[in-house]
């Protein structure tokens, strides 16, 4: 049985000022197995973020349903950890307090909270910054804290919505390696939304390509590159072949999307 089943999920946004309703997402079906790392790849405005928000329970599907461990998703919950593209650390809490946010909500004993926080601070390489305010951190450090905050809650599945979209190229590459390293150790189930082809191939075990609005799944490609992956992978012929194929798949969609805008 699938870990997560997206079953015929569609989303139509009502028209603004009496205009025609917007079909953001065509009925979409996707089965995610436990320990899968799926990248959802598509041009901007293809409904990939909408799909992720529906899985998170932050948005409701117009039709269809989402099943996590065979239970229907009816709203947001701690079993689906989310990392947003925007910086969403709570500015009034320190790095450590941010990571402990979900643990405090579950009323874990303080000693237990401290142990988990220290563990994740270490894993995302933020030792020495526990008492900093989010404002004092770089964008990359803020997103590392956000990843730690979501992971510390031990969710069934991680949802990442272009988490590195606002970072510079170098930081971005380092963050991909960090996330991949964590996944290789923990094998969490991950849904990762991105519009970056290289990023999708490098970190995911499966890449799902979505079409331009209205979004639907166009291709579902297994990435059989071996783990652990090293950044040098990006220069291998296998990587280039996958990149060429995905570029072809997505280019047609980008052209359509550009024409529509």
């Amino acid at each position, binding site marked *: 049985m699938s870990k997560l089943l997206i079953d015929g999920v569609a989303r139509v946004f009502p028209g603004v000022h009496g205009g025609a309703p917007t079909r953001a997402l065509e009925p979409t079906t996707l089965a995610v197995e436990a320990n899968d790392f799926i990248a959802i790849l598509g041009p901007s405005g293809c409904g990939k973020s909408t799909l992720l928000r529906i899985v998170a329970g932050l948005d409701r599907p117009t039709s269809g349903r989402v099943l996590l461990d065979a239970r229907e998703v009816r709203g*947001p919950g701690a079993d689906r950890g989310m990392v947003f593209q925007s910086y969403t650390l*709570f500015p009034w809490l320190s790095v450590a307090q941010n990571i402990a946010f979900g643990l405090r909500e579950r009323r874990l004993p303080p000693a237990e909270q401290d142990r988990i926080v220290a563990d994740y601070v270490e894993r995302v390489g933020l030792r020495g910054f526990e008492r900093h305010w989010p404002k004092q951190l770089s964008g990359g450090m803020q997103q590392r804290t956000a990843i730690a905050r979501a992971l510390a809650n031990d969710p069934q599945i991680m949802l990442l919505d272009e988490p590195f979209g606002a970072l510079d190229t170098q930081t971005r590459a380092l963050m991909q390696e960090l996330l991949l390293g964590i996944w290789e150790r923990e094998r969490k189930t991950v849904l990762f939304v991105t519009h970056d082809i290289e990023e999708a191939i490098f970190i995911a075990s499966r890449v799902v390509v979505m079409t331009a609005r209205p979004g639907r799944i166009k291709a579902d490609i297994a990435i059989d590159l071996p783990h652990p992956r090293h950044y040098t992978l990006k220069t291998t012929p296998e990587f280039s072949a996958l990149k060429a194929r995905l570029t072809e798949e997505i280019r047609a969609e980008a052209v359509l999307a550009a024409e529509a805008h």
Partner: protein
Amino acid sequence: MRAIAPRLTMPRPLEPVGRASRIGLGIAFFVVFVAVWAAATLGGFVSRTFLADPITMVMDGWTLLTRFGFAADIAVTVWRVVGGFILASLVAVPLGILMGAYKPVEAFLEPFVSFARYLPASAFVPLLILWAGIGETQKLLVIFIGSVFQIILMVAVAVGQTRRDLVEAAYTLGCGDRSVVRRVLIPANAPDIAEILRLVLGWAWTYVIVAELIGSSSGIGHMIIDSQALLATGQMIFGIIVIGLIGLISDFLFKAANRALFPWRLA
């Protein structure tokens, strides 16, 4: 040239000013203000009947404090402002948070509060004297009416503008609705709420003086209206300046408290 003589050039727009210069410049204007006032009065440009000079003002003030027990008036006025303001805050801040967080509550209360906000507190003074006499209750009520609707509305707006992505992040971390109010909406807006209280406290000072000008036997406002009968402009100005000084002090205290309570804002 700019590099050689930076002190003589105009500052660039938005260029920050150093701490010492900031304090110096701030004091300088007070000096200029008093100097112009002294020149106008001591130089004989303005009749002494209508405007006392600074020296007379200070001497009148000293007499007020030492011989007429003006310190007690000041204490009574401060007590009224603080009392009425705290009562208003206790009612208004929770209501404002509720309105900001829950849209049906907002839909229910917002139109009335917006209407009530424009009811002038000073116009209530005669009515409140009928209802509550000229005792302390009436003074507190004037300040309460003047402050409570303002605070409710401003707090509701602040809470309503909480960043949605922070709220969504809290939900995905396992928060329920009440948790979101307690752990996100309130701490996220606490500095803004403190700033709103600081602002409205300033307005509360206006209301207390109006309340004391009519039907009162104590307080700074009462002293000012008494002095008018005697044409003692020195005393009147001293009273007004005392109010200004108290405002300055309370502002300073509020800002210091905010810095201590919300260090993350300044980081």
